[in-house]
């Protein structure tokens, strides 16, 4: 399997994603500059966290019109795998590649902390290594991670089972207290209908080694890799 990590100006989790994908999960990974208009022959494109173009307008709002995003649209349309983490998730919703939007945290402040998320499906290329109901401990670090969708869209998301991860407590219960940012239906990560685009706010790349306190996120990279073994 081959992967590319997109580097926007202001991306700052690009090296972390590269490290987890390449050095830890053993996926052959390259960096991909935002001014490129073509995707090299890879199976997976990772949109990393950060503050693309400074995010002074709205998170992900400028990245969505960058040259590389046109290429990523085509890549995804032809079935290529796309993983957007944190700012990458924001870019995917801004681009319309995933439904909904990510608005400011309910607390109105930046939140960096460990959260628990529950795996809702394991019939996707991103989660085949997990069991449904598995509880993962991953860090979040964001200002705008509060998932919002109008009622109709939210219904559709649920009906089509597009929710891949939900915030939960350590036992897997979905509660008000375990929802860190006010996301509707405790949504932490969703996929598109075709199942090849995942956006998630928690950072699996920061939870891929025991020395960092959790390796619960490594399963995402390993799931992807196994699918291409």
């Amino acid at each position: 399997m081959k992967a590319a990590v997109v580097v926007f100006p202001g991306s700052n989790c690009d090296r972390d994603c590269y490290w987890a994908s390449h050095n830890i999960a053993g996926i052959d990974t390259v960096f991909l500059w935002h001014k490129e208009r073509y995707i090299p022959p890879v199976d997976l494109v990772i949109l990393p966290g950060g503050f693309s173009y400074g995010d002074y307008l709205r998170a992900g709002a400028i990245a969505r019109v960058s040259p590389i995003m046109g290429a990523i649209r085509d890549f995804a349309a032809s079935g290529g795998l796309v993983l957007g983490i944190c700012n990458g998730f924001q870019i995917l919703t801004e681009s319309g590649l995933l439904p909904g939007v990510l608005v400011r945290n309910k607390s109105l402040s930046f939140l960096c902390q460990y959260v628990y998320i529950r795996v809702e499906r394991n019939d996707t290329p991103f989660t085949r290594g997990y069991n449904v109901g598995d509880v993962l401990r991953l860090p979040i670090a964001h200002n705008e991670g509060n998932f919002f969708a109008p009622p109709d869209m939210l219904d559709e998301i649920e009906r089509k089972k597009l929710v891949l991860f939900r915030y939960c407590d350590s036992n897997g219960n979905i509660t008000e207290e375990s929802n860190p940012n006010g996301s509707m239906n405790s949504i932490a990560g969703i996929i598109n209908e075709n199942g090849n685009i995942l956006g998630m706010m928690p950072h699996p790349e920061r939870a891929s080694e025991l020395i960092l306190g959790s390796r619960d996120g490594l399963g995402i990279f390993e799931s992807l890799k196994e699918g291409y073994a």
Partner: protein
Amino acid sequence: MREPAVTVKLAREHGLSDEEFGKINSILGRTPTYTELGIFSVMWSEHCGYKNSILLIRTLPRTGESLLAEPGKENAGVVDFSDEYAIVFKIESHNHPSAVEPFQGAATGVGGILRDIFAMGARPLACLDSLRFGPLSDEHTRYLFRGVVEGIGFYGNCFGVPTVGGEVYFEEAYRDNPLVNAMAVGLVRKDKLASSVAAGVGNLVLYVGAATGRDGIHGATFASEELSEKSGERRPSVQIGDPFMEKLLVEATLEMIEKGLVVSVQDMGAAGLTSSSVEMAAKGGLGVELDLSLVPQREEGMTPYEIMLSESQERMLFIVEEGKFDEAKEVLERWDLHYAVVGRVTDDGMLTVRMNGRVYATIPVDALVVGGGCPAYEREPVYPKYLDRVNGFTPDDFLPAISAEEALVQLISSPNIASKSWVFRQYDHQIMSNTVVLPGGDAAVLRIKGTGKGIAVSTDCNGRYSYLAPYTGAAIAVAESARNVVVTGAKPVAITNCLNFGDPYNPDVYYQFSEAIRGIGDACRALGTPVTGGNVSFYNESATGTVVYPTPVIGMLGILDDIASFITASFKQEGDVILLLGETLPEIGGSEYLKEIYQAVWGPPPSVDLAKEKAVQDAFLEIAGLRLATSAHDVSDGGLAVALVEMGIFDRENPLGFVLNASILNGFSEKEYHLFLFSESQSRIVMTCREEHLSKVKEVLSRYDVKSLLLGKVCGDKFDFGRFSIPVSDALDLYYNSIERILKGEWK
């Protein structure tokens, strides 16, 4: 462009004394021009020129086998780390800007220290912030506190550096003049270490980054005077930070250095274009000529004076060979950065400033810099009378007014001791995926990818101790910051310091400063941790003349040779035995207990025996090396009782209680019980180990002649102190939620 006439009066308004103005006249052999006066005033300000501190600072131990750069010569200290890498680190203050505009003041403080790190060719790895405010019950304090924390988070999170630690204290003395000290740590390949020494006559002076505006003009001078009623008018002196621009700058700077395109580089920090060009030229024994009409400007009609003194943020100055300019240009354009060649390196030793064909300044660069023409003053320190007044306290003078249980509950709920998680969760502390020990404990631990090694970093200072005993307080700041890294299993190797004091012409302040330097020097010599550099911040006083506590903040760097051997402060398993290393003396003076329970700041503070300190630290490092310690924590604010509770609840998701050996308390009066629990005696570490390892641990301790006391065992869901106990769940709630409750107005 006509410039104002320069007079003695104008020089005074620039903060220059009459003698200094006379010296400028004799250096130049004429009256300076207006632009020259501005240049002298910022270069000779306390902030850039260290005129009241440099002679004392030079007495600090500044050599060591692990130091790779001469202190003060480069932008930050450089410490040997591995065959391939060195660690670069430095701390700096941004106190006055944060007092008038907390968000931007703190944000640009972070930006400034990060530039110092990547100007060395190092990628910033971590930030720490040492913060001091007035009482949290005060509304203005809450405004400053929220703004500063948000500003630090805003800048560091966007730039993409983890903020992994620091301290937050609330004391009356900082009410009007908060302290905001930012420390940054970076990693550099030794063969890519960049220099700030200009070289090569004819080489280009390349300006990169944000355009120059009128913001921050006289920031260095602002930092060099007391805050006053009019400080609000200084708000235009506070710069605005753009962390996205800084992120582009770090990438482009490191790429240019990596490609060998840079002769030397310095950031445009305090005194902007002036200090960066002058200091680089002076270090190289060369001159520099600048044509200001080439400087990117974001406002119309800027004068040479304004351009030279602007402190607009996110700007770097490079010296580049002409033949490599095209390649440099390519890098800068790829990162969409603005740049301009604004001058050349010359061999005449002069700073020559031109604009639109006219010369506005010609000054020998050497006349402007520390160690050259910049004045340096030293005065005889005079013992201040206040020290006798505040130091008469003995334990005989008090009777416990409340029970030990009530005192402990009050302490763990107090803003100085309660968890600062409200602060840390606003900082991204895990980005770069290196953070092994998260903020909240003694020191943060980071692994260095590809080396198997790690670093531990901590900042420390107890301003109250320093106020009560300037020498001892400063020595304790060094000792405690070293202990903070030692308890993670790291060996302390070097310090950086940020010396926050009042007006140096106030004899009391000058005494505090000189004693603090002596304390730092002695402690650093005893512990083998040389001073790699730092920053002096004088004039930390309010409009009404309240001087801050003398606050010499120490930033300590420790190295773990095997990252897998790191130790955290939380209890790990039931049945582990708890051991106190060091001795508990009846040292309640200067304590959090006296302040919190009695609202009293009485000295003397705890003493420190540096030989004993060293022995405790060395003994513990040997124990850690043998992998015998399951947890360890420094005993500091709030004493042993607080340290034990913290160990039980630091791992918030897996808290564990303990039971104290009741026999320890035999014969203790109520007062002795309080002294035992809340004394802040130094050189103490609480550690745990498996019971079967206890004899081995004791064997090591006896070899180092370190006394120890078997405190009890880890067990259960309550903290059993023999004469009372509190449920772990209560402690968790008080410790983790108190600050938020105060901020929400639920508590006073």
